[in-house]
C-alpha cells in the first residue's frame, strides 16, 4: 500500500475553504453575468424585488433556475462518475463509455423522428433509453470477466446506440434537428423553473442511493478474487453499483442531454483533493466538484461567444478530458487500473 503522509489540520481545511469560496463566487457570477450584467452588489436588491422587472426576470426566472439545474446535474454526474469508476476500478468507466448517455439520447431521437407521442417527453423516453442502454451493458458484461472487458463492451454498446442516434438525426427534418442536437451535445439552454420542478426532485430522490452503493464499493475494493474467497459476490456488487450509476446518469441526460465527461474529471479531482482517502470521502468531494464543474462550464458556454450559445456538453468534453488526463496521468493507478 501507499504511505499516506500525515495530513495536518490546515491541509485538511484548505480545500474545503477553497471549494466553498469558489462555489459562492461561481453562483454569484452565474446570476450576474449575461445580458444585462448585474453588479454583484445589486443582487440582494434584485432578489428582494426592488429592481426593474427586466433584471428580476433575468435573474430570478432565467439565471437562477439554470444555475440550480447546473448544480444538481453536475452533482449527480460527479456522484455517478465516482460510483462507476470505483465499481469497475477504472478511471475511464464513464457514462459516455457505458451506453447510458447514448441510450438516453438515442431514445429521445427516435421519439422525435417518428413523432411518437409519449407522455412526459423528452424525460420519460430518455429515462427508458438510459435504462435500456445501461441494462444492455449490464446484461452483456454479466459473463465477461475483469474491468477492461466491461469497459470495452460498454464502449461497443455506446457506439451502437450513438449510431442509432445519428441515424435518427440524419433522418429528421430541419425543425427537429434543433432539439436533437441537444441530445448529441448536452445543453442547459431554455431552463425555466418548470424544468427545475420536473427534474430536480428526481435527482434528489436518486442521490441518496449512492450511500446505499457504498458497502458494495467496499466489497469491490477488495478485488474480485479476495471478495470471492471471502464468500462475497463481486459480480453482484458490481451490477448493483452499475445500476445506481445508470439511474443517476439517466436523470441528467433526460432534461439536459449528455453533459459529457463530467463523470470522468470530477472523481479525478476528488482523488487529488483527498489522496489516500476512502471512497466515501471521494463520493462527497466528487459530487460537490461535479456541481461546480458544470456550473462553471455552463457559465462559459453562455458568456464566451455571446450571443452565440455554445453547447455545454461540448465544452465539458474539452475541459474534462484534458483536465482529467492531466490529473490521471500522474497517477500510477491510471495505468494499473486498465491492465
Amino acid at each position, binding site marked *: 500500500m501507499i504511505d499516506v503522509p500525515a495530513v495536518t489540520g490546515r491541509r485538511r481545511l484548505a480545500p474545503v475553504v477553497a471549494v466553498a469560496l469558489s462555489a459562492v463566487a461561481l453562483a454569484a457570477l452565474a446570476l450576474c453575468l449575461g445580458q444585462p450584467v448585474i453588479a454583484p452588489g445589486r443582487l440582494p436588491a434584485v432578489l428582494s424585488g426592488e429592481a426593474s422587472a427586466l433584471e428580476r426576470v433575468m435573474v430570478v426566472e432565467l439565471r437562477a433556475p439554470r444555475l440550480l439545474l447546473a448544480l444538481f446535474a453536475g452533482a449527480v454526474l460527479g456522484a455517478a462518475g465516482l460510483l462507476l469508476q470505483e465499481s469497475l476500478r477504472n478511471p*475511464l468507466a464513464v457514462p459516455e463509455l457505458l451506453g447510458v448517455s447514448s441510450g438516453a439520447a438515442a431514445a429521445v431521437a427516435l421519439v422525435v423522428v417518428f413523432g411518437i407521442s409519449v407522455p412526459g417527453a423528452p424525460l420519460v423516453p430518455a429515462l427508458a433509453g438510459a435504462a435500456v442502454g445501461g441494462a444492455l451493458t449490464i446484461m452483456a458484461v454479466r459473463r*465477461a470477466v*475483469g474491468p477492461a472487458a466491461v469497459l470495452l*463492451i460498454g464502449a461497443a454498446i455506446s457506439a*451502437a446506440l450513438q*449510431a442509432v442516434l*445519428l*441515424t435518427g438525426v*440524419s433522418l429528421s427534418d430541419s425543425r427537429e434537428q434543433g432539439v436533437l442536437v441537444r441530445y448529441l451535445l448536452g445543453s442547459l439552454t431554455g431552463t425555466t423553473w418548470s424544468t427545475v420542478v420536473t427534474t430536480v426532485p428526481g435527482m434528489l430522490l436518486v442521490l441518496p442511493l449512492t450511500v446505499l452503493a457504498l458497502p458494495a464499493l467496499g466489497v469491490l475494493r477488495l478485488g474480485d478474487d479476495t471478495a470471492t474467497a471471502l464468500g462475497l459476490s463481486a459480480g453482484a456488487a458490481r451490477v448493483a453499483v452499475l445500476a445506481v450509476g445508470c439511474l443517476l446518469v439517466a436523470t441528467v441526460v433526460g432534461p439536459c442531454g449528455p453533459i459529457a465527461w463530467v463523470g470522468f474529471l470530477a472523481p479525478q479531482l476528488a482523488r487529488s483533493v483527498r489522496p489516500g482517502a476512502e471512497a466515501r470521502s471521494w463520493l462527497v468531494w466528487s459530487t460537490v466538484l461535479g456541481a461546480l464543474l458544470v456550473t462553471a462550464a455552463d457559465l462559459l458556454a453562455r458568456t464566451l461567444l455571446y450571443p452565440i450559445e455554445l453547447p455545454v456538453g*461540448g465544452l465539458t468534453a474539452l475541459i474534462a478530458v484534458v483536465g482529467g488526463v492531466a490529473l490521471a496521468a500522474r497517477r500510477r493507478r491510471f495505468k494499473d487500473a486498465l491492465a
Partner: protein
Amino acid sequence: MPRRGVWTVLTAITAFLALAQLMTGSSGNGPAALWGMLGDDVARQIVVELRAPRVLVALAAGACLGIAGCILQALLRNPLAAPEITGIGSGAVLGAVTATLLGGFSATPHGMIGTAIAGGVLGGGVLWVVAARAGSDPLRLSVIGVLISAVLSGITLILLTARPQSTGTMAQWLIGSLNGRGWAHWHALWPWLVLVLVAGLLIAPVLGLLSVDDDHARGVGLEPPRWRSAALLLAVVAAAAAIATVGALSFVGLLAPHAGRLVFGADHRRAIPGSALIGAATVCAADTVAQQLTTLAAAGERPLGIPTGAVTAIVGAVVLIRAARRLSTLTSGGQS
C-alpha cells in the same frame, strides 16, 4: 486450409458480396432485375452511373479501413486498436467537417480527402506527442487514443452548431453512408487505395518486427521511432481517405484486421491485403443490408435512408462484445 485456398475463398466471398450489392437498389432487387436493367437503355444508366461506382467506393473504402486498422493494431500492439479509438478517425472527421463548412475546393471529394488527412495527422500527431511523454505502454496508448477521440469529436459537435441547417447531412456523414457516392468519389479514392496498399506491403516486414518489440527492430539495425511514425502516417492516410469519402464507418477498421489476423496469422505481408479484402467485403455486405432495410422502411409513410454506418456499428458492436467476452474469459487468470 492451404494458403491459396484461403485467398480463393475470401476473394470469392468478396466478389459475391459486391455482386449482391450491385443487384440491390430502390429500382429493383435480385439477379433478374439487374439483368432486365442491363437490357434497358435508361435503366442501364442507373447501374452504370449509380450502382457500379457505389460498389467500387464501398470496396475501396472498406479496403482502406482494413489496412489502416491492420497497421494500427500492429503498431500499438493492441488487437483492439482501430482508427476510431486512436484519435485518427475523429481527427479525419473533424477535418472533413471543417471542409464541408468552408465549402469551395475543400468540399470536393479530392479536397475532403486532403483536409481529412490533415485532421487525421492532427489526431495522430497528438497521439504521437502524448505517447512520447507517456512511454510506450500499448494499453496506455489506446486509452490516450480514446480520450483524444473524445476531445476531437467534442470540437466537431461544437462546429455542428455553427450551421444547424446542415446537421442532417453532417450526421449522415458522422455515421458513414454510401448514399449518393458516385464516380467522382471513386476517382478521388482509388489512387489512395493503391498507394496505401503498396506502401503497406513494403512496410509489412518492419511492421512485423515492431509488433513484437522495439529491441527486435533495433537488433536488425532499424530505428523504431522513425519507422513507427512512417507507419502511423500510412495508417492516417488510409483511414482519412476512406473517412473523407464515405464518412466514419465504425468498427470496419477494428474487425477486418482482427479477422484478417485470425485467418492469416501474424505475417503482415499477408495480413495487410487480407484485412483489405475482408474490409471491402464487410462494407459491401453492410451497404447491401442498409439498402434492403431502406427499401423495407420505405413501405411506411416516410422514406428512410438507413446509413451504412448504422449497420456496421450495430453488427460490429455485437461481434466486438462476443470477442471481448471470449477474450476476458480466456485471460481471466491474468485480469484485474
